[in-house]
Each structure stands twice: as structure tokens, then as C-alpha cells.
């Protein structure tokens, strides 16, 4: 079973040379720490920066340079700043190659819910609805089950949707899955996790074909 760092590490392997990548808040942000050094990747943050670097050294924080999670950041050589309209032109116009974000629920049709729990938590969708409606290549990073032990991979989402039929891949603490027209296709097991454990933790349609390899990190 993976921890959050493990999920981020596995997703980092999906990042290819030359990619522009948008990272959501939480586990997705951690992906940046695990991307190979020998490839060129630029991180976009929807509040208006391309070419994000690591956190600043203490004392060098600049209130005017933050990411979408409102964290102080730095920039890399070749970075640019721009306004929100241009930022979403990048996103809506499909110039961002890979979008990684968290979710509360994903359905076996690729629907995603991650912005609202009616009557309980209403923080808003931020840029998530724009991202999932436009991105060609979306990976969801999340735990396989919620705190109550219930599956987050469902037949139908029960929470208000963020987007419809948009998720292509999911990396959880238990598995890597692809969303196909027939449901979640199991691609890889997390180290030490059995196919049965994944079946038990998955509520939506699950496709298991042949031997399922253990993921390499």
C-alpha cells in the first residue's frame, strides 16, 4: 500500500519530457518532488505562472509570487507571469499537457466530484471545473477509500459533479486504474496489495484482465 508520497512518486512517472503540467492542491503538488531530473517539464499554476520552481529559501518569500494553493514559490529560468484570462486560455485551449488533481469521488464513466459536500463543505470549484472540462489528459490522485472506509471509485458519483466523463487515469494508495468505456480497468497493484483487496475497495465496475503487475516506483 502506498502513502501519499508513494502516490505522488507513481504519478511522477507519467510526466514526460516537454510536458506542461498543472498540479492541483494536496498530493498532486507533491508530484513535482519526484519528477526525473533528466527531463524538461514546466509547471503551470492557474493563478498566473508558468515555470514554477521550488519553495523559496527562508527570508526570500515574496507575497507577490505564489501558486494556486497560495503558497510562496520561486520561478525557474524561462518562467513567465500572466493574468487569469491568459492562464485559462492555456487550460481551455488544451495547451497544458497533463492535469493532476485530487477527487472525493470518481465514477466508472470518468465523472469526477471534488468541490462540494452539500450542507457541509462548500469551498468552491476554483479552477477545477475549467481544468477537467478541457484537459485531454487528466490523472486523479487520491486515496482509494474515504475515512469511513467507503470506496471513492463508484458506479455513479453521489456528490455534485465537477466534470463529466473526463478522468482518464486514477492513481490511489492501492492501484493504478484506467477509465474505459467498460469501467475501471486495473493496470497495476500497489506493492503488497492483492487484486482481491482492490476489488473489495472498488464500488464501480472493475475490469481485471490477466495478471496484474505490481507497480514499479
Amino acid at each position: 500500500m502506498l502513502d501519499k508520497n508513494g502516490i505522488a512518486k507513481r504519478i511522477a512517472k507519467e510526466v514526460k519530457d516537454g510536458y506542461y503540467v498543472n498540479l492541483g492542491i494536496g498530493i498532486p503538488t507533491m508530484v513535482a518532488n519526484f519528477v526525473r531530473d533528466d527531463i524538461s517539464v514546466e509547471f503551470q499554476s492557474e493563478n498566473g505562472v508558468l515555470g514554477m520552481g521550488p519553495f523559496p529559501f527562508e527570508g526570500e518569500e515574496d507575497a507577490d509570487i505564489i501558486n494556486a494553493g497560495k503558497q510562496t514559490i520561486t520561478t525557474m529560468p524561462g518562467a513567465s507571469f500572466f493574468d487569469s484570462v491568459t492562464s485559462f486560455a492555456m487550460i481551455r485551449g488544451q495547451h497544458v499537457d497533463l492535469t493532476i488533481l485530487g477527487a472525493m469521488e470518481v465514477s466508472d464513466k470518468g465523472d469526477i466530484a471534488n468541490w462540494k459536500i452539500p450542507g457541509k463543505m462548500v469551498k468552491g470549484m476554483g479552477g477545477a471545473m475549467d481544468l477537467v472540462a478541457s484537459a485531454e489528459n487528466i490523472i486523479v490522485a487520491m486515496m482509494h477509500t474515504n475515512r469511513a472506509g467507503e470506496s471513492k471509485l463508484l458506479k455513479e458519483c453521489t456528490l455534485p459533479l465537477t466534470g463529466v466523463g473526463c478522468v482518464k487515469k486514477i492513481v490511489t494508495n492501492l492501484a493504478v486504474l484506467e477509465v474505459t468505456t467498460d469501467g475501471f480497468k486495473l493496470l497495476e497493484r500497489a506493492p503488497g496489495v492483492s487484486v482481491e483487496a482492490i476489488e473489495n475497495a472498488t464500488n464501480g465496475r472493475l475490469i481485471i484482465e490477466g495478471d496484474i503487475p505490481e507497480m514499479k516506483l
Partner: protein
Amino acid sequence: MIRKTVENVQEALKGVKDGMTLMLGGFGLCGIPENTISELVRLGVTDLCCISNNAGVDDFGLGLLLQKKQIRKMISSYVGENDEFERQMLSGELEVELTPQGTLAEKCRAAQAGFPAFYTPAGFGTEVALGKETREFNGKMYVLEEAFKADFSFVKAWKGDEAGNLIFKGTARNFNPCMCGAANITVAEVEELLPAGSLDPNDIHVPGIFVQRIFQGEKYEKRIEQRTVRPRN
């Protein structure tokens, strides 16, 4: 060159009244019109509709207006980090219209650029699209979103000149440019107000035509929401 300079925030906010719709730039606490917000609190105008990506934190940014219950309605994309906001919303005191972030930006830009409405894929199939026209183009579904209308836009820039030209710094740019010229009157507060001719015409982020009033803010706290650092080796 058309002079737009006003002496202070009091003069800049002349005409702001109860019940108005205001746009306010900024992302989180980054690039918010701090001096304007303080003056709105002091003026005590109420029943406001505020269009702003976020709602500040409890004791800074738009949170200050929320505390005083000056806001009737918020139109935002993300309103976490604010307990008083959540309380007012869940109790029904505060009306909230949540809008996808890119749609929010484009609704401002549409108002600025004279577009009545636009089709965006964001929110299709979600409750955001309820009651809105949807339409297919080239096999993909889109939602028709209308341009905002507002009485005042309040933005914050790094440098500005007497002609109303603006330059922003870093990610403090965010929603500020698209809100310029998107309301009847645009008021820009800047950290440094310079004589016309001080800024290179190639470097202007927002041409002065989109700004009606400009002033140098008295002080900027520029509070950081999430101070993240790495250790020095």
C-alpha cells in the same frame, strides 16, 4: 495624455453606494486592493455584491467586509480559508454564486471587451450549468455564460502612471487586468504612481483607457496566506 490621478482613496471611491456591484482583483490575498477594502469598511457601504475570485481570510481582504456584514452576495470561484464566510453562507445570510475560475475571469473580460456572452466547456453536466443554455460545437458540449455587469472595478497594480497605465508584479496580476474596464468606473490603486512617460509603452500590462481613476495606496501589508519555504543547505 489624460490625467486620472486622484489624491487619495476617499476621492477614488466617490460614488460608491449601498447595493452596488463591485469587482475586486486579487487571488487569495495576493494582488488585492488593500487600501480600497479598508476604505469600503470605513465608508460602511452595505448590501454589496462583490465579484472576486476569493473572499479573503477572516481578518484580512474581503473578510473585513464580511465581518461587518456589508456584503449581500459573493460571486467567486473559491471561498475556503474563511470561517465567517462559511458561517454566513450556511446560515443563509450571505448569497453565494460559485463560478468556475476561468469562467469568472472570462465573464470580466467579456464585459471589458464588449462581448455579451460566450460558450465555455467548464461546468457542463454540473450544477453550474443548471438553467443555462448548452450547445454542441464540433462534438463537444459548451455552456453559455454571460458577461458581468458592475458599477465599480477595484484593482491593485505594482506601478502605474498618470495616464492610468498599469504594470503588475508576479502573480499579483491575476484577475486585476480583466477587471479593468469591465465596470462603469475602474479604480486602480498602485504601490508606485509615476509621471506619464516613466513607463516603457512596450511594458504596459493594462493601457490607461481601461482605468478611470488611479491613486497611490498609503500602505501595503501584503499578507502571505501560506508561507512555504525550504531550508538552506
